[in-house]
């Protein structure tokens, strides 16, 4: 008995998950968008969240990115309880812990690719043109640093968006349909980029309809009617 206890105590302390959801719910009036959702995501995992329209994917993504609050349950991000945070605290968590990749890229049209990255640095800490340029190089767009979004293709804009999500070394990258607006060729490039990021040990959660991503991701979480399908 004592030996067994000692054996358990001797096990290494498990690293805390980047995301831990416990009985998470979100209602909009009488409509329950998420019901008792629980799962956790370990550091370095690449998880795809899939499900039909209206299954609660976007609601879940909004809560995971601290743009919305759950009405029930618990959400720990990198070990920090996020329920009950006010807007300022949520903003701080977003700039320090999360990198967001949008389906529609959302680059500021009057800033260059480089300046769009520097803006994220500016809100995080301090704008550093050298680091921003290196991040653009990382996504293969060093030569497009001084171009405005309107001068870039959709695929290039998405790569700038990914570089912006990486620029502050966040604990978590959250992507919403990152290839939803791209052609096949660019979709392939972006998927390859996510694969590479995963290989680097980044924690990636992406919401997608695209079954190809399901196969690229390490794990798939399926939602239906606001509930998890099967085991997460």
């Amino acid at each position: 008995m004592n030996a067994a206890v000692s054996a358990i105590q001797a096990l290494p302390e498990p690293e805390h998950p980047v995301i831990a959801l416990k009985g998470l719910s979100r209602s909009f009036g009488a409509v329950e968008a998420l019901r008792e959702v629980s799962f956790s995501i370990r550091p370095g995992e690449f998880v795809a969240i899939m499900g039909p329209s209206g299954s609660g994917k976007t609601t879940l993504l909004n809560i995971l990115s601290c743009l919305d609050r759950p009405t029930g349950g618990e959400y720990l991000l990198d070990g920090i309880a996020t329920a009950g945070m006010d807007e300022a605290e949520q903003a701080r968590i977003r700039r320090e812990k999360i990198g967001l990749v949008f389906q529609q890229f959302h680059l500021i049209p009057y800033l260059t690719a480089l300046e769009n990255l520097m803006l994220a640095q500016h809100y995080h800490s301090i704008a550093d043109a050298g680091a921003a340029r290196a991040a653009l190089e990382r996504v293969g767009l060093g030569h497009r640093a001084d171009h405005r979004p309107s001068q870039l293709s959709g695929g290039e804009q998405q790569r700038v968006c990914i570089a912006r999500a990486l620029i502050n070394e966040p604990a978590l990258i959250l992507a919403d349909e990152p290839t939803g607006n791209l052609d096949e060729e660019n979709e392939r490039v972006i998927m390859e980029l996510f694969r590479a990021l995963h290989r680097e040990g980044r924690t990636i959660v992406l919401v997608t309809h695209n079954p190809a991503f399901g196969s690229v991701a390490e794990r798939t979480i399926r939602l239906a009617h606001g509930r998890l399908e099967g085991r997460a």
Partner: protein
Amino acid sequence: MFWRLLRQSFLQGARRKILSGLTVALAATLGMALATLSVGVGDKMAQEMRAYGANIRVVPKGESLSLAVGGLDLNPLKGRETLAEADLPLIKDIFWHNNIIGLSPFLDVQVSLGDKGKARLIGTWFQHDMPMPDGDVFAAGVRTVAAHWQVEGAWPGENAEDQVLLGKSLARRLGLGIGASLSLDAHPVRVVGLLETGGDEDSAIIGPLALAQAIANVPGRVRAIEVSALTVPETELSLRARHNSDALTTAEYDVWYCTAYVSTIAHQIEEAVVNASARPIWQVAAGEGAVIGKMQVLMAVVTLAAFLSAAMGVSALMTATVVERAREIGLMKALGASLAEINAQFLSEAAAIGAAGGLLGCGFGALLSQGISAMVFGQSVPVPWIAVPLVTVAAIVVALAGAAYPARTIARLAPVEVLYGRK
């Protein structure tokens, strides 16, 4: 990065920002023009109002109470105090001598018109070149002091002792007109003009001072002097000084003495002329103060209204900008920007628009005030340069006030709504 954002934002949305700037500039133009006119209008109005009569009356001490009833003075002239005609140039030699723009002596005397009864003769200067101690000549006389007197016919010549004006009421009573001859206490005179003032003079004969002095047998003496002086509107200080200048502190006295209040100039005339009691004609002085005060209030209200509408204009334009840039603001929030950082950018844009509009408005306003002054007063008005920073600051405040409502919109904007277009 902040400045880069600001610069790029200006380059990007130049059209709307120029419109906002022009809205503020318009209000600032009005503000600057009215501020300039408001400061200059006192002098201009005082000058204009001098045409409606003197504002200071100088009489011998103890003679300040008139015993005239129904136009007839019940006091016999003999034995009454008078002032020396030779002292008149001293009035033009006081500290505020440049503000004395006209003066005229008066000596009135009852005269017999023979079988036509009695009448009042007012002796005065019509247009008299008064030699000054420094050798200059000052154009004195009723034609400068009482520019509102209406004369039908001609003004008497200054050195013609036999020419008089006849008040219109008296002319009607006597049945006389221009060219008629009269005998004033055996001095023959000829009526060269008929006078209408709306005052006591309408029932009197206005003649040369020397004639009145000869009839009254008081050579070189006058009974009263009316003075036209450019003054500034009365203030609480001058009103206190009016009651008792001895009650002022030394500092207050200095301020009062060195300001061209009507009471100050009256006080200095009393200091200069022996045995004189100089009294402001309060109806005129107070009327001027009230008119100028009301004009300034009117201008302030118009300026306030202009700035208020500018604030509303800026608010509308900035709200449109915020709506147009909602995604950008949502993105900034999603990237973790604090509300203070986002507001700082929009408020800085508003402040820059306010400053540019304010400075532009100051320039236009200064020009506009010159145009208005030239049109209304026929001459330029000095631009109070202190108004430039004041109007610019007011313009910035107005632009920031206009940005207050859009700032609330920014605070309420939810990133999920604008970035994903859904809740």
